[in-house]
């Protein structure tokens, strides 16, 4: 099953990459960019038949390894 994990930096944590990219966009004339956050997404193929079970296993992977609760929230999406 195709699973997409999005790992978002918590709003209260600084994002130097996002800040730098925003400055760069402004310099290039894209002043309409009002906020920029750089996050990561993990695309996985996961063996399994049951979408709910796959989701709960991947959520476990997130808690154990893929996301750091100090910095990040995560979202798991299992493709239908």
């Amino acid at each position, binding site marked *: 099953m195709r699973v997409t994990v999005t790992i978002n930096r918590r709003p209260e*944590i*600084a994002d*130097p*990459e996002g800040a730098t990219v925003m400055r760069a966009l402004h310099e290039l004339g894209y002043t309409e960019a009002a906020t920029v956050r750089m996050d990561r997404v993990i695309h996985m193929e996961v063996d399994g038949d049951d979408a709910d079970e796959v989701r709960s296993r991947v959520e476990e992977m997130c808690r154990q*390894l893929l996301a*750091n609760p*100090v910095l990040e929230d995560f979202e798991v999406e299992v493709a239908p």
Partner: protein
Amino acid sequence: MRVAVAVFPGVNCEHDVVYALRALGAEAQLVWHRETDLSDFDGVILPGGFAHGDYLRTGAIARLSPVMAEVERMAKQGAPVLGICNGWQMLCEAGLLPGAHIANRDLTFICRFVEVEVVDARSCLTAAARPGQRLSIPLNSYQGAWVDPTRSGRVVLRYVEDPNGSQERAAAVTNERGNVVGVMPHPERAMEDVLGSSDGQTLIEGFLASLVPA
């Protein structure tokens, strides 16, 4: 007194740390990250480098290594546990120190001597230093900025001038008890004047003085 220096795949400062420890007469030994018994050791150092390539998040994969269970046991028992650079990042990931690390403010790797000030001598890293003392120690990191939304870490070394955006200009942080310390600059690189500074000796000496026989 024996110090374990834990080696994770991708770490690269392990030999330098052993060299520095032995230069001060300590008994130091490398242990592989799959080791499950550190009972022969009185303290442990997690050296710097790029464990698992720094992939995913710095320190994230390393903290799952078998040896980390032993590091945690020693930390709980009050033995000195020091994480240098990447080692500090592992200690944060493992929850033995508060907070986490993000990229340097200017998004460049920084390798140069920086000045740090001792703000708290009650830790296994600063035990031989005095508050207010200034030390010149090389910084060498990209994910060097410490963040701690809980504001629960006790800062023991502070950058005199902010190089990377670390919260509270923290260069080293300890736990409540003072036996677990994470430090971003590399004391083992400042052991001899011929290499630019010997100020790191004070810190390594402090660590060695904090060892108590297991």
